[in-house]
């Protein structure tokens, strides 16, 4: 699949001023991001009617953050592109924004957040954008710092675009090493256009995965891959 953004440039270069502006003016793109954000929040399984403190990983121009605000949550966003964060500022999003590299680890205190979402960002961590980058090490640094700053029992949901199954394997193995349980939920597995991957990570020990959307039969969804520590 040629033309994947992460093969063209590192994220802070790809999402420069022009792309940042385009991204946030493309209404179809915005609609897709909105739907995915709402689905990610649903998969977080937060307690009902309770305002939570959420971290948005790869928050970009704040599209997913707005879903969090709409649902009554308080959020902080981290992104590596200052151009995208600039657009978020212009759009006056409610969340606090941080310029940072997820692969360097999340600089937060233990238990700071009640949950984490990430929309269309995780695949960027799988590339070595600099000679010194080791994707497996960066993923582990990221996941272990995330595990630390989530309160016990909370979840992290990542919508992302895996390039291939070994990338999924790389990601899930580092997440497991860091202490997470959980698995991949694939919505609309039979539709090339609608198919969406959500990595659902949990901190409170193995629990059943949420059901995927668009699965025809009622049997144990073959599109849910569960993994655990042992």
């Amino acid at each position, binding site marked *: 699949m040629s033309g994947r953004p992460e093969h063209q440039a590192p994220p802070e270069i790809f999402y420069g001023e022009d792309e940042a502006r385009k991204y946030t003016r493309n209404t179809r793109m915005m609609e897709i991001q909105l739907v995915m954000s709402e689905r990610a929040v649903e998969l977080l399984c937060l307690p009902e009617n309770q305002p939570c403190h959420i971290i948005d990983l790869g928050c970009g121009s704040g599209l997913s953050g707005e879903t969090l605000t709409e649902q009554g949550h308080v959020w902080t966003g981290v992104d590596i592109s200052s151009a995208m964060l600039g657009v978020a*500022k212009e759009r006056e999003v409610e969340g606090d*924004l941080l310029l*940072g*590299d997820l692969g360097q680890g999340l*600089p937060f205190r233990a*238990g700071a957040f009640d949950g984490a979402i990430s929309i269309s960002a995780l695949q960027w961590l799988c590339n070595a954008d600099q000679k010194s980058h080791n994707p497996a090490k960066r993923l582990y640094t990221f996941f272990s710092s995330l595990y630390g700053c989530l309160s016990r029992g909370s979840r992290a949901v990542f919508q992302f675009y895996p390039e291939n199954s070994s990338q999924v394997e790389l990601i899930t193995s580092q997440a497991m090493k860091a202490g997470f349980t959980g698995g991949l939920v694939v919505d609309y597995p039979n539709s090339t256009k609608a198919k969406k991957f959500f990595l659902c990570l949990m901190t409170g020990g193995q629990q059943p995965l949420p059901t995927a959307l668009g699965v025809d039969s009622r049997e144990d969804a073959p599109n849910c891959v569960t993994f655990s520590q042992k």
Partner: protein
Amino acid sequence: MKLLTHNILTSKCLKGVTVGYPLGIVAKEVKVNEVEFNPEFISRMIQKVDWPALCKAAENLGHLDNLPPAVVDDYENNEDFLKKAHHFLMEIEVINGDLICPETGRKFPVTDGIPNMLANEDEV
């Protein structure tokens, strides 16, 4: 950057830093906003907040006035306390300045309300 965010930020991703908390603040520009008061959220956040670090931060910003020096008993039902906590956590924003690692002195600049936590390759 709101003081709630400052209260949970550390520099522990840097090599050689053990705790990296709390970060010092030298602010050149601070803004006070009006943010909708959500008592339930504030009540829950107080459990996570490091109150002495919050006082230190407010003091650094020259905005210490009125901040209670400690969390009171039965704060969940004390609306006056919750409102004060809300004001300091959610309504005071650092726009420009620096955050300082307490162990290495390394500065993280804050520009237009956004802290730059990017570390150099040799720092992580």
